[in-house]
C-alpha cells in the first residue's frame, strides 16, 4: 500500500534497493564510467555544473550517473553537496576578453578583429540521425586539427564602446562585495548581481521559454547577438594574507552579450544596452536565454513599462530555480490525507446544501 500505516521504513529501504538495481541496468552491459560521461556526454555535465553552481566535472559526472541521467536530479545532488562546502571568498571578476577562445561568433558584424571562429557547434549540421554512431563498430572520426593562432579577440562590446554607442560594463564601488543568494535570502527589488546569479543557476528550459516570450512581443527588446564566446578563462582570487591576487585555475565558460537598441530617456542618451549571459562550460542556449531575460529584467532601470512576465523580477527569480520548483511540485506526492479529509468534509456538506436547495427549487417550480 502506498501510505502504509506501518512498515514505511522497510518499504523505503526496498524502494532504494530497487532504484540501485535499475540504475545499474542489465549486468551484461558494461557499467558506464565517469570518464565516459564527462567526455562523451559533456554538454549534460556542463549543464549540471552551471545549474548546480559548482565547477567540478567529476562530481557532475558522478551525479549524472547516480541520477540515472535525470539532469535536474543530478543538479540537486550537486547542490546538496555544494551547500556543505565552506565559502572562502569570491574571485576577482573574470576577464573574458583574455579568454582562450574555442568559439567566437558575432551576428552584428560581418568581420571584426579576431574574426569569426565557429568551433565545435551543432549549427549548420543537418539534423539527420547518424547510423554510424550506432552499434559496436563505430568508425572513429578523424581527429580535428585545431589551429591555435592565438590572435587577440577583443569583445564586440569593447569595440562599440570606443564610440560610446553602447553602455559600459559599469563601475564597481571600491571594496564592494558581490551578493550571494546562497548565503543571504533574496529580497526584492534585487540588484543586478543577484539577478544574474539567480539566472545563471536558473533552469535552462524555464529561461529559454521566457527569453522566447520576449521575442514574441511579451516585452520586445529588439535583441542582436553582439557576441557569443566560449573558452577558458583564468580565475584569480585575492589572498588576504598575501595582499595580491593569484590564479587558482582555469574554467571553461560561455558568454553571451545581447545588444539591444535603446531610444534614450530624459536622463540617458540613445545608445545600445546590453543583456548578459554567462554559464559554466559550453551552454550557448542557456547563455543566450539568460541574456535576453537579463535585459528584460532591466526594464525599470531604463524606465520601460513592466508589462510582461520576463520583466517581472519577482516572478522570474522566484520560479527560475529548478531544484526549488521540482521539490515543491513533487511534494504533492507526499500524503495530504489530513487536509484532503477536511476538504472532503466541506465538499460533502456543500453538496448536501446544493441538493437540498435544488430539491426546494424544483418543489417550488412544481407548485
Amino acid at each position: 500500500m502506498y501510505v502504509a500505516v506501518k512498515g514505511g521504513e522497510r518499504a523505503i529501504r526496498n524502494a532504494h534497493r530497487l532504484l540501485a538495481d535499475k540504475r545499474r541496468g542489465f549486468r551484461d552491459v558494461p557499467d558506464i564510467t565517469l570518464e565516459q560521461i564527462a567526455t562523451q556526454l559533456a554538454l549534460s555535465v556542463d549543464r549540471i555544473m552551471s545549474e548546480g553552481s559548482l565547477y567540478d566535472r567529476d562530481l557532475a559526472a558522478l551525479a549524472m550517473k547516480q541520477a540515472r541521467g535525470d539532469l535536474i536530479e543530478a543538479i540537486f545532488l550537486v547542490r546538496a553537496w555544494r551547500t556543505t562546502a565552506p565559502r572562502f571568498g569570491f574571485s576577482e571578476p573574470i576577464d573574458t576578453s583574455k579568454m582562450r577562445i574555442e568559439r567566437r561568433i558575432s551576428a552584428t558584424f560581418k568581420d571584426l578583429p579576431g574574426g569569426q571562429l565557429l568551433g565545435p557547434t551543432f549549427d549548420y549540421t543537418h539534423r539527420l540521425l547518424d547510423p554510424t554512431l550506432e552499434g559496436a563498430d563505430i568508425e572513429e572520426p578523424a581527429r580535428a586539427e585545431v589551429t591555435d593562432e592565438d590572435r587577440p579577440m577583443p569583445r564586440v562590446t569593447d569595440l562599440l564602446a570606443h564610440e560610446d554607442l553602447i553602455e559600459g560594463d559599469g563601475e564597481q564601488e571600491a571594496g564592494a562585495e558581490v551578493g550571494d543568494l546562497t548565503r543571504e535570502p533574496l529580497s526584492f527589488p534585487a540588484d543586478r548581481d543577484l539577478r544574474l546569479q539567480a539566472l545563471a543557476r536558473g533552469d535552462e528550459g524555464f529561461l529559454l521559454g521566457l527569453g522566447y516570450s520576449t521575442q514574441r512581443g511579451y516585452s520586445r527588446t529588439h535583441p542582436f547577438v553582439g557576441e557569443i564566446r566560449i573558452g577558458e578563462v583564468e580565475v584569480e582570487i585575492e589572498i588576504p594574507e598575501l595582499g595580491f591576487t593569484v590564479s587558482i585555475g582555469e574554467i571553461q565558460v560561455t558568454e553571451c552579450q545581447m545588444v539591444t537598441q535603446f531610444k534614450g530617456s530624459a536622463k540617458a542618451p540613445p545608445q545600445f544596452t546590453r543583456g548578459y549571459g554567462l554559464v559554466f562550460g559550453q551552454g550557448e542556449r542557456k547563455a543566450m536565454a539568460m541574456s535576453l531575460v537579463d535585459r528584460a529584467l532591466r526594464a525599470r532601470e531604463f524606465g520601460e513599462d513592466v508589462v510582461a512576465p520576463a520583466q517581472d523580477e519577482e516572478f522570474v527569480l522566484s520560479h527560475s530555480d529548478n531544484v526549488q520548483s521540482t521539490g515543491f511540485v513533487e511534494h504533492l506526492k507526499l500524503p495530504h490525507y489530513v487536509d484532503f479529509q477536511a476538504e472532503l468534509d466541506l465538499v460533502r456538506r456543500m453538496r448536501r446544501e446544493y441538493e437540498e436547495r435544488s430539491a426546494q427549487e424544483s418543489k417550488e417550480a412544481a407548485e
Partner: protein
Amino acid sequence: MNEFSAIDGKDAAPVYNFAYLDEQTKRMIRRALLKAVAIPGYQVPFASREMPMPYGWGTGGVQITASVLGPDDILKVIDQGADDTTNAVAIRGFFETTARVRTTTVTEEATVIQTRHRIPETPLGANQILVYQVPIPEPLRYLEPREVETRKMHGLAEYGLMHVKLYEDIAKHGHIATTYAYPVNVNGRYVMDPSPIPKFDNPKMDDCEALQLFGAGREKRIYAIPPHTSVVSLDFEDHPFKIQTFDEPCALCGSRGVYLDEVILDDAGGRMFVCSDTDYCERHRPEDGSAPVAGWEVDQ
C-alpha cells in the same frame, strides 16, 4: 554516500557535523529563531540552505530541528499525525544517522517534535518544542502573489483583504470555506499561516505551553509562537470560528473529540474513521482487544 543512505547507512560513519548542518549555519538559524520568538508571528527571512532532501519535503522544519537539537534531546517526527508515514520515517532516519539522538513515537516523551500537517492530540508541555514544516508561510499569498506587497501589508497590519476573502466565503456559501491552513492572528498583531494543519488543530496553538517554531525552507522564512501567546483564528462576531466535528468515534480506539482520517475499506462505499494521531490511538485502545482491527493492519 547518497541522500538515501541517510536511512540505510546507520553503520556508515557520518562525515557530517552533529545534526548535519555546520555550526555557522546553525548560528545563523538560531539568530533568526530568536528574532522570530521576539516578534511572534512575524516571518523572519533566513538564508535557507539546500538540504539533502527536496524543497517542499520539510527542509525548513529539518533546518530548525537541526539547529535546536542537542545530544540529550528525544525526537519525534510525524506526518499527517502518524509516526510511520514515509516522509516522517525518512526525516527521523536522517536525524538518527546525523545526530544519533534518541527518537520516540510517544508524544509525552519527546522534547522536540517535528510535524507536518498536524498538532498531536496529547497536550504539549513546557519542556517541548513543536517544529512545523511550512510550504507557503505567507497567509496573504493567494490573495496577493507579490512579496513586496505582502510585506508592506504586514508592516501596516493591513489585513482587510483577508477579511474580505472570509466575508466573500460567507456571502457565497453561508460559511467560511477554509478547512486547513486557516489564518490566525498572533499576539494581537501579525496574521499568520498556521501551516496546512486542519482548522481542528488551531485552538491547540492558543496559550500553548510549548514553544512553536515554523520553518519554510524553500521560501526562506522562519516564524514562531512563544509559549502562552494568544493565537486567535480569524472570524466574525456573527460567524464565530468553528472546528470540524465527527459524528462517530475512532473505529480503533473509540476516542471522540479527536481528528479522524477516513479509511476506504472496499469499492462499495464501505469506510471507517480512525485517529490521524497514531500514537494517541495506539495508547487509547481498549486492553481487552475489543477494538476492531483494520484490514490494512493485518497485511503487515
